[in-house]
C-alpha cells in the first residue's frame, strides 16, 4: 500500500528533533555530551558569555532558531551584559560582538553536533552505507585545497578504500578510512566534520553499490568496515594562554573532574566517553567529582563508574537481561574498551560483532558467561564487593582484573 504524501511528510508542530538511535543508551546522551563540552570550553574564559553561546548553538542544532536569530540574541545579550573586547581587539575575530566570531562559534559547534549524529548513525548502518562523500556545502572564508590534503593523507595512510581525490567532486572514502583522522587532512581530530574551522564542507553517506562502483571495496579494507564507537568529546582539548601556575590550578579546579593539564594542553578527560587511557588514568577520570550541570542543576553523572559499581554490588542482577541495569551494559563496555588495548578489544568485540543479532543480548551473555565467572576468581573482585568505588585505586584494581580476563 503506497504511503500517502501527507502521511510521509508529517509535521510535528514545534517539536525539536535531536538525532538519536533509540537502541543505544549512550547515543541518547549526546545532549549531555554537548553540555559537558560547552562547560569545558566555557571554563577557559568568559564563562557566562560562552554559556550563552552554548545555549544558542543547542537552539540552532535543535531547529528552534536560525543562525541569524541566534546571532541577534547574542548581540542583545552582549549589549545587556556590557561586554567589551580587550583593547585592540575591537572588530576582530576575538571580539565576541562581531558576526564573524559569532558565526564561527555557532557553526563550528552546530556542524560538529550534527555531523557526529550522522557519523554515529552511519556506524550502525555500515553494511549498507560503508562510505562517505566529502563535499562543499557553502563557500569558505578561507578556502583550503581539500583535494591536495586528501591526496597527501592517502599517501600517508593507504589508497585502498578511497577515491583518488583529483577534485572536490571526487572525495569519497570508506567511513572508517584512516585518512579522516590524519592530521594532514583533519586539523580538529574527530572523525566527523568540521575538519577545519569554517571549512564549509560536509559529509553524506554513500551506498554499498556506489562504493563498489567507485572501486572502494577492493584491497585491504576489512578494518575499515568495522563499526567504531567514539564519544563526541574523545579528542577534546585546548591550549589556554595561561602561564601563571596559580591560575592554571584555579582553572583545573573550576573544571573539576573534567580536565587535566598535560604540559600546556588542557585535556578533557571525557568521564562518560571513550577517550582511551591506562587503567590508573581512567580510574582517576571516572571517579573524580564532577561539577553541576547547568542544564539540570544536578552534578554531571558518571555513568561508567555507576555501571562498575552496579556490577560490583549485584553481579547476578546486573547481568540479568530483565534488570534495570541493562542500560548500563553499554557504559561498562565503553569503560572496558577505553582501557583495553587493540588486541584485547578485538577479543571483547569478537563475540559481539554478529550482524543482525541484538548486540545488547550478546553483551549480556558475555557478561554472564565470560566476565563474571572469571572476575569472581580475582582478588580485586572480593575487595570491590560491598565497597563504594569512589577512589581511583579501587577502580584501577577492578579494571586490571577485567583486562586480565580478555
Amino acid at each position: 500500500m503506497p504511503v500517502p504524501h501527507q502521511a510521509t511528510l508529517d509535521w510535528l508542530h514545534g517539536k525539536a528533533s535531536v538525532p538519536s538511535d533509540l537502541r543505544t543508551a549512550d547515543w541518547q546522551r549526546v545532549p549531555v555530551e554537548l553540555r559537558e563540552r560547552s562547560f569545558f570550553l566555557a571554563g577557559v574564559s568568559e564563562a557566562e558569555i560562552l554559556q550563552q553561546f552554548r545555549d544558542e548553538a543547542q537552539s540552532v542544532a535543535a531547529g528552534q532558531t536560525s543562525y541569524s536569530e541566534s546571532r541577534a540574541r547574542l548581540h542583545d545579550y552582549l549589549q545587556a551584559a556590557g561586554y567589551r573586547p580587550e583593547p585592540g581587539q575591537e572588530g576582530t575575530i576575538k571580539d565576541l560582538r562581531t558576526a564573524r566570531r559569532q558565526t564561527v562559534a555557532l557553526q563550528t559547534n552546530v556542524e560538529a553536533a550534527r555531523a557526529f549524529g550522522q557519523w554515529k548513525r552511519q556506524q550502525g548502518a555500515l553494511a549498507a552505507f560503508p562510505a562517505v562523500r566529502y563535499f562543499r556545502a557553502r563557500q569558505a572564508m578561507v578556502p583550503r585545497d581539500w583535494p591536495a590534503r586528501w591526496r597527501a593523507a592517502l599517501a600517508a595512510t593507504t589508497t585502498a578504500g578511497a577515491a583518488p581525490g583529483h577534485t572536490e567532486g571526487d572525495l569519497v572514502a570508506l567511513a572508517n578510512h584512516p585518512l579522516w583522522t590524519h592530521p594532514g587532512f583533519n586539523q580538529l581530530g574527530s572523525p566527523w566534520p568540521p575538519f577545519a574551522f569554517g571549512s564549509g564542507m560536509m559529509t553524506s553517506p554513500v551506498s554499498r553499490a556506489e562504493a563498489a562502483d567507485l572501486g572502494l571495496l577492493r584491497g585491504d579494507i576489512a578494518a575499515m568496515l568495522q563499526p567504531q564507537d567514539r564519544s563526541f568529546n574523545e579528542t577534546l582539548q585546548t591550549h589556554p594562554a595561561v602561564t601563571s601556575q596559580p591560575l592554571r590550578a584555579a582553572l583545573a579546579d573550576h573544571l573539576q573532574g573534567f580536565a587535566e593539564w598535560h604540559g600546556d594542553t588542557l585535556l578533557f578527560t571525557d568521564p562518560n566517553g571513550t577517550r582511551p587511557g591506562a587503567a590508573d588514568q581512567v580510574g582517576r577520570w571516572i571517579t573524580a567529582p564532577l561539577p553541576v550541570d547547568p542544564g539540570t542543576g544536578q552534578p554531571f553523572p558518571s555513568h561508567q563508574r555507576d555501571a562498575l559499581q552496579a556490577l560490583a554490588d549485584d553481579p547476578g542482577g546486573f547481568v540479568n537481561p530483565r534488570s534495570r541495569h541493562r542500560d548500563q551494559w553499554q557504559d561498562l563496555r565503553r569503560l572496558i574498551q577505553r582501557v583495553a588495548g587493540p588486541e584485547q578489544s578485538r577479543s571483547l568485540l569478537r563475540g559481539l560483532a554478529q550482524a543482525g543479532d541484538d548486540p545488547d543480548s550478546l553483551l549480556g551473555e558475555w557478561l554472564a558467561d565470560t566476565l563474571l565467572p572469571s572476575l569472581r576468581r580475582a582478588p580485586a573482585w572480593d575487595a570491590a564487593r560491598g565497597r563504594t568505588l569512589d577512589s581511583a585505586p579501587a577502580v584501577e584494581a577492578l579494571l586490571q582484573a577485567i583486562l586480565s580476563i580478555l
Partner: protein
Amino acid sequence: MQIHVQFRDQASDRLHQVAAGLLGDRTELHATMAMGVEAAIIDHLRTGGYIGRTNALGAPSTGYWGHLANSVASTADQAGALVSIPHRGAALHYYGGIVKPTQKKALSIPADPSAHGVYARAYPQILAFIPRGARHDQHIVGFLVLGKKVTATRGRNKGQPVTRPMSREEGGKLIYVLRDQTTHQPDPGMLPAEERLRDAAAQAGRAYLDNLLN
C-alpha cells in the same frame, strides 16, 4: 516547524515479509532504511541546485541550504523510522505560507547585500526609519536606511541626539524593507519525490538483508 518523513514496514511489503521471517528486532533494519532516505535527501539538495545557490541580493551566501542538508537526521524503532529536517525554515520553504512578526511590529527584509543574514537590531551601522508612502504596498510598514546621529535643533527633542536618515550624497541607502507579513510560495521540489524516497529506503533495506544472508 520541521519536516518529517515517516515510513513504516508497509512501505515495502516484500521486504517486510523477509524481515519478519529473519529478524526479531527490526530496529537496525529501519535505521538502515532511514539512512537511505537521509542520503537521498542530501544528494537531492546537493545535485538539485539548492546547496550553493546564490541569493537574489548577490550577497555572500549564509550557506542556508548546506546547513539544512547538514541537519537531516533520523530515528528508528521496531515499527518504522522517522527522517527529520530540524532546520529553521525548512517547512516554510517546502509548504510555503505567510509569516507575520510575533515579537516586533514588523519583519525586516534585507534590501542590501550587507543586510543578508543579519537581523536589523544587529546591523553594525546606525539605521533610520522612514515610514511608508501612500503608493507603497499595504503590507509595507516602512524602511530602514543608513542613518546618522545629529542634535535636534527644534521640536520636543531639541538639544537631544536623534537619528536621521543619511542623504544619498552622504552615502545613504536602503538597507531593510519593513513588512507586517511576507508570503512564501511552496517549493515541493526541495525534497525528492515520494517514490524516490521509498525506493531509497527499500534499496537500503535490501542491502542490509543481503549482508545478513551472506
